[in-house]
């Protein structure tokens, strides 16, 4: 009896003994792999392909960071997280960074002790309904049954939207995107709501995507971006500037196709600084001089990543919209590399 109590106590001690590590950058270098939290499977953003390789828009951020830190874009351990487990996974140190279309909000940034390192996709919450329903506006959804993916900001936005418009609805909280789609397809809910990008992604997987429409209302601002634990500023800088490097590369015309040529022969001093042929930006954040070059070579610049995974040529078919460079009327604006 006594013995089993002690053994039990030892087990608990073992479980709780993982202290939150401060120097994530050193840990990642020592480990040789980056532990990156991603979605459990969202086409275009993070999903394993037929060969079991993770691909997608969020996955590309993980690969770029791994390339910048370790020089190897494949040195990533992808940890699938649900809306529910993602924050615990990050806070406990199970993952080094989270790139799982997570909305940057005040309370997550402050109260939950995380640091958002930028925005890789400007999104907003929308509604998808079957065309046959004859609904043209979310305000017509009075009394409807709405499927929501639980554990996300969408629940709160949804409650706010219906309360503000003084109409009623019945929520059906669903744990994962796949189950929600199943319920929606069977007609157990009239509408499905999540980030518009996620809706487009899900709609693309239907047999007849044309039978479903996205309603025009976008009821929230959802800036999605990668995040790290609060308090480890060096690591936060690495992730932040890797993302900025991808964005700046597109703005400066550096792509995975021309990057070697640009590195050798560029006359633009900012490109030279970015690619490490001039100045020593790399050493300032504890990385090699060619960190940004490796990051860009991993899966291309921001524009290439967007086009390959979720762009208009893909089944997801998202337009750049807000996610265009600031020079093209979008919101992407990287601070200068100087």
């Amino acid at each position, binding site marked *: 009896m*006594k013995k089993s*109590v*002690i053994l039990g*106590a*030892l087990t*608990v*001690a073992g479980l*709780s*003994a*993982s*202290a*939150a590590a*401060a120097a994530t950058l050193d840990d990642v270098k020592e480990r040789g792999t980056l532990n990156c939290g991603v979605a459990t499977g969202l086409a275009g953003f993070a999903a394993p392909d037929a060969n079991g390789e993770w691909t997608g828009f969020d996955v590309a951020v993980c690969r770029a960071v791994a390339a910048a830190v370790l020089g190897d874009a494949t040195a990533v351990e992808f940890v699938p997280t649900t*809306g*529910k487990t993602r*924050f*615990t996974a990050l*806070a406990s140190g199970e993952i080094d960074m989270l790139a799982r279309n997570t909305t940057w909000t005040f*309370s*997550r940034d402050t*109260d*939950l*002790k995380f640091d958002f390192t930028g925005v890789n996709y400007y999104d907003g919450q929308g509604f998808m309904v079957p065309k046959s329903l004859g609904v043209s506006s979310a305000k017509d*959804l*009075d*009394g*409807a*049954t709405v499927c929501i993916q*639980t*554990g*996300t900001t969408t*629940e*709160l936005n*949804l*409650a*706010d939207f*219906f*309360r503000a418009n003084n109409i009623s*609805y*019945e*929520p*059906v*909280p*669903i*744990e994962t995107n796949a189950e929600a789609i*199943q*319920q929606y397809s*069977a*007609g*157990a*809910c*009239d509408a499905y709501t999540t980030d518009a990008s996620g809706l487009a992604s899900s709609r693309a997987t239907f047999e007849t995507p044309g039978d479903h429409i996205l309603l025009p209302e976008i009821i929230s601002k959802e800036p999605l971006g990668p995040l790290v*634990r*609060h*308090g480890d500023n060096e690591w936060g800088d690495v992730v932040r500037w890797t993302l900025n490097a991808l964005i700046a590369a597109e703005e400066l015309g550096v792509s995975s196709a021309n990057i070697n040529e640009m590195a050798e022969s560029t006359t633009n001093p900012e490109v030279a600084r970015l690619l490490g042929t001039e100045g020593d930006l790399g050493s300032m954040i504890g990385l090699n001089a060619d960190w940004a070059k490796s990051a860009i070579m991993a899966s291309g610049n921001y524009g290439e990543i967007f086009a390959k995974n979720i762009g208009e040529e893909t089944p997801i078919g998202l337009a750049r919209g807000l996610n265009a460079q600031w020079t093209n009327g979008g919101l992407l604006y990287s601070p200068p590399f100087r």
Partner: protein
Amino acid sequence: MSTLTDPPTGSFRLSMLLNDTRYRSMTLQVIAAIVLATLLFYLYSNLAANLRAAGLNISFDFLGSSAGYDINQTLIEYDSQSSNLRAAVVGILNTLLVAVLACVTATVFGVIAGVLRLSNNWLVRKLMAAYVEIFRNIPVLIWIIIIFTIMTAVLPGARAYLGDDPERDMLGGVIALTNRGIYVPSPFFTSGFGGGEGSGLNWLIVLAVLAGSFFATRFITHSADAKQEATGVRPKTGLLNLAVWFVPLVVLALVLGLSWDLPDPLANRFNLRGGLQIGAPLIALWFALSIYTGAFIAENVRAGIQAVSKGQTEAASALGIRPRRVMSLVVLPQALRVIIPPLISQYLNITKNSSLAIAVGYADITATLGGITLNQTGRAIECVLLLMLFYLVISLVISAVMNVYNSSMKLKER
């Protein structure tokens, strides 16, 4: 070795703590206690240090702030502006609701299947054996999902019942089976307390009348027993009991103006309005827990019945008692003593397994406090602690109640 040695004389030496059998066990226990206390202290300081390092503090203030999300099945008044605490209470009530419903139906399934497993009829016996083996050997989560998926896929959407000229007619014009749930008429009182809307007081009166009928029938049975003991003739009580149950209810319904709120297919373009909606998640969870745990209870019942000596059955048969009455008067009362203790743990299992509700979107305590609230506030440790506390308390209460019942049923030794 002689057991009659004189107690050692002389003064106490330190080595006696280990060598002397009188002190040795005490010494070992003290050492074990110290080690345990040190470990616990280490665990606590480790947790505290890590939380401090992560900049987190334990605080339950979030319970008072507004929850911000809606819940689809609420037994008490709740909206998105209610506090997280109220959301947790809504979850607790939903957990208790499904647990109580499932305990009752699982017991019914279990007793029927357990008794029939010992039937003399080959087909019935084998069917029940198949039920028990299939249902208890597949995880309950799978059953919950299977039943929910079947409901979703087989039943029509709510829209099939809507409009002036619906695709489908409601059963008897009042009951609609949809893949969102089952809509049935709900009773309300037009001339009771609280006017047309009605108030809880009316239902309390109904409950009081039902309790009165219950005690009245018990009294009737007792006096019939007494008369049978005294004269050997048992007065007929069946009709009287029926009257005691139904006459007061009918009178009450007339006095309070009982009326039925029917599901209305015209009120809304998406869903039926009015009536009582029993949601698909509740049905799936309730049914899955019932058939799964029912299979375990069936085995308990069978074991209990088989534990009753065969001589009892034979003696009862020899007295000319019919087989059904042998079961209900002789075997089951004795079998109950064996059945109840394992039954307690099955009830505890139902309560704990109801936390799988989130798989089908049923808003139990794990889904509200341990799911959405935890997610939105990020207060993982606090929420999980509260969850553990709730399940512990509720399990201990069930256990205590069942133990009282058990001690009232067990063999009275004189």
